[in-house]
């Protein structure tokens, strides 16, 4: 007489297949979520560096005259910043673009007020900003993202 029900071998085989199925599902979910996270971080990182580069190009193009723009050391900030002087409604103002605490920042100050890095707002998350002014020629700059990607830029002064 044939035994009814599953044998222990069938049971073990089924369980093994179930375990295999579960492991495959888990590994798929883990790798997919890891890939998504990595991809999302890279996109965000590149987006930040694009914003920074685009912002700097726009600011420089608007103000690229020898007498209006300078690269200076700023109190309380490690790296040099860009100082753009302008007159708005008869007031002399300074727009200062600098890198501080992981962000490219912009602050607008009256020319007779003291620079304070906290009185500024963040533009984009950046690891580093290298700026080098070439006398009467232009500004050479490099933006480095948190993930270490970098974009180089150069803007020539508008000839008088």
């Amino acid at each position: 007489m044939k035994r009814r029900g599953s044998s222990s071998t069938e049971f073990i085989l089924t369980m093994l297949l179930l375990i295999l199925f579960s492991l495959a599902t888990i590994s798929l979910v883990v790798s997919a979520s890891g890939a998504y996270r990595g991809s999302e971080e890279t996109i965000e990182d590149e987006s930040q560096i694009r914003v920074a580069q685009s912002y700097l190009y726009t600011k420089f193009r608007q103000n690229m005259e020898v007498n209006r723009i300078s690269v200076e050391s700023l109190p309380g900030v490690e790296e040099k910043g860009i100082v753009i002087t302008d007159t708005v409604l008869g007031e002399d103002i300074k727009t200062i673009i600098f890198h501080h605490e992981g962000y490219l920042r912009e602050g607008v100050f009256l020319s007779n007020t003291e620079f304070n890095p906290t009185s500024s707002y963040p533009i984009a998350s950046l690891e580093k900003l290298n700026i080098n002014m070439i006398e009467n020629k232009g500004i050479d700059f490099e933006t480095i993202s948190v993930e270490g990607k970098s974009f180089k830029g150069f803007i020539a002064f508008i000839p008088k």
Partner: protein
Amino acid sequence: MIISNLLRIKNNRKKGFSLVELIISVGTLSVAGAFILLFFAYSKDINTRSFDLDNSVYYSNYIIESIKAEIWDDEPTDNSLKIESLSQQDGIVKEIYFNKDWEIIETQEDAEYIMEFYLDNKDEIAMGKGLYDLRITVTKKNPYFRSMTVNRTLYTVETKVFISTEEGDSLD
């Protein structure tokens, strides 16, 4: 009678998954998984393409602006765009090679991206400067993911630049 027969048939069915059902499930999951991973691969590829385009644009801008400012000794031109006799040049004036990470390298063999400059003298002189047509083309040597196109043109820009032709400058 019919109902009791149906109930008996239902009760006789084996509970749980059969092997065939399990194999079909694993197969379906594998196909779905492959599509999901392919989706991420495509996403990464699109990201790479946009990053390449960004770099092509920024480096081309860099060149054009440094020509305007007559800065010949800065990266990426690094003094090598200081052409001895532009008027005698035809076709490609210069090539700059970049590796996969967009770092400038010396040799073409290891290059992933090639930036080519074409300069054409328009012979118009104003204020000691000659007017030139400048064309910059950036190509990628190897194909992108699931693409067969080698030496794909990523970016082309054409502009006019004034370059100093006075003695002692970058030109003869």
